[in-house]
């Protein structure tokens, strides 16, 4: 903006335009800075993708004989090897999400709309504290404490609901995918709770009062004004949690007894393995082509995470008109 009114400005025209120029320069500087920050994200993303592609390539194009030379890879092709790993990764993460989301939404609603302020605050801190626990500690907790504790429950499940294949053939100790998912659920609970709580707190007072004034009970008010408003936020939160569960390494590695099958026996050990835990367990002894093969599985994980995020965006965008953002 240039100064046009000489009566209001005591500065000389030269000084005024000098000031304007420096302001313009600082504006351009900030533009450059934010543009650079934006571009750096793309560069890092591209660098990671390029690394994965280049390093995975030798394994992707390798012949059957070459792959057979890798001691732990007894599959007819790389795709056949990765398939069960992708399955195991998705299964454990989706199960974790199924456990975590309802609990997280419940806690978030309790904190934002039901609890007295003092309790709500304390509970909020506690949930945030869960997020600060390192995953290796969760692994130890899951392997040493949770497994014996959850054992009678799994027994009961297998004895009473064993006719459903999902719950058949429980074999102690509980080193199965359901135990791993339980720990994963605890690990992703804080992030989903924290994001959901923030979204629920932002539900417009205006709409909450509209619902109450129509004669809604508190739960009906939550259903009419808070949950629909928070829907996209809860989806984003779940996807953040899913992202963490998909990539989680230590906890799964320490709990699950690995297997490479497309199996829905949730209580049987030696059925499943996740990509991340598999890389961590194989990497120390890998060399040559086997490293490339492991990186190829990493590429698969990267693609899955990417797809999950795109899916979440699409779900959110689909009902944008009704989101209340306009």
């Amino acid at each position, binding site marked *: 903006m240039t100064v046009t009114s000489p009566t209001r400005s005591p500065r000389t025209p030269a000084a005024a335009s000098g000031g304007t120029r420096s302001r313009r320069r600082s504006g351009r500087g900030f533009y450059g800075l934010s543009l650079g920050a934006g571009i750096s994200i793309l560069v890092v993303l591209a660098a990671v993708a390029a690394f994965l592609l280049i390093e995975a390539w030798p394994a992707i194009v390798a012949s059957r004989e070459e792959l057979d030379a890798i001691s732990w890879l007894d599959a007819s092709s790389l795709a056949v090897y990765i398939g069960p790993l992708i399955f195991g990764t998705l299964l454990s993460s989706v199960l974790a999400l199924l456990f975590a989301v309802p609990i997280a939404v419940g806690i978030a609603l309790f904190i934002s709309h039901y609890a007295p*302020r003092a309790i709500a605050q304390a509970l909020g801190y506690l949930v945030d504290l869960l997020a600060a626990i390192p995953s290796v500690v969760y692994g130890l907790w899951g392997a040493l404490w949770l497994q014996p504790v959850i054992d009678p429950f799994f027994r009961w499940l297998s004895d009473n609901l064993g006719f459903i294949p999902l719950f058949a053939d429980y074999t102690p100790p509980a080193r199965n995918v359901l135990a791993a998912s339980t720990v994963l659920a605890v690990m992703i609970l804080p992030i989903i709770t924290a994001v959901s709580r923030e979204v629920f707190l932002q539900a*417009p007072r*205006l*709409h909450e*009062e*509209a*619902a*109450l*004034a*129509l*004669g*809604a*009970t508190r739960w*009906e008010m939550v259903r*009419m*004004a808070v949950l*629909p*408003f928070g*829907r996209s936020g809860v989806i984003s939160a779940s996807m953040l949690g899913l992202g963490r569960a998909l990539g989680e390494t230590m906890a799964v590695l320490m709990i699950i007894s690995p297997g490479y099958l497309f199996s829905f026996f949730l209580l049987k050990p030696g059925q499943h393995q996740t990509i991340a835990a598999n890389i961590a367990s194989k990497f120390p002894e890998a060399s040559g082509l086997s490293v490339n093969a492991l990186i190829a599985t990493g590429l698969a994980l990267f693609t899955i995470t990417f797809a999950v995020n795109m899916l979440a965006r699409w779900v959110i965008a689909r*009902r944008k*008109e*009704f*989101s*209340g*953002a*306009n």
Partner: protein
Amino acid sequence: MSKRIDVTDLNVYYGSFLAVADVSLVMEPRSVTAFIGPSGCGKSTFLRTLNRMHEVLPGARVEGKVVMDGTDLYGANVDPVEVRRQVGMVFQRPNPFPTMSIADNVLAGVKLNNRRISKSDAADMVESSLRGANLWTEVKDRLDRPGSSLSGGQQQRLCIARTIAVKPQVVLMDEPCSALDPISTLAIEDLIEELKSDYTIVIVTHNMQQAARVSDRTAFFNIEGTGKPGRLVEMGDTSTIFSSPSKKATEDYISGRFG
């Protein structure tokens, strides 16, 4: 479908702060009662006690009696949720539910009472409520569009349609036109004139011309200073209040000498 409300010795508190003191007045059925007064005099706070919306704020409470149809709305075994189904409310800023379509907005309150409402009943109710709010002709071709796609004035009439769809006895309006342009304001005022044949209407307004145009009775609230409670100064027929008020403060306010 229209009931009289008797308020006796009502004190309204926010925590320990007395916001409105000693209000006693009567709102007649099938008429429009307007509350006027300077900002902060407690007229909106008082209005919100009439459907027990005041107490949704933490620490807010009420002493005194609000009697509708022989029952004290603040009686021990009266459910505030029930009260709000009888006494509807339209807010200062239009607040249709953004996640619902126009039709669903109209049915929002109805569905609380009656989950299983047949498709044809629902359609009839949407039409009659929207007609009642003078909005039908404008939106009948886009009932499945979001409520937030309407203009401000249309949104406010949608909120009125939503309120009258539950067939309340009383409709409270908290400065319903303050966020609207003059043409939309006129539409709402016409609507109030029509609604009064079916409902007891209580309206808070900052606009004295509006009070003079739409109301039958007017109550003037005033506050002596900050930290003091708001009080009812006088109440009477709108024509009397605006031509020959009995209190000096009322005359000063309506003639624009303060406020």
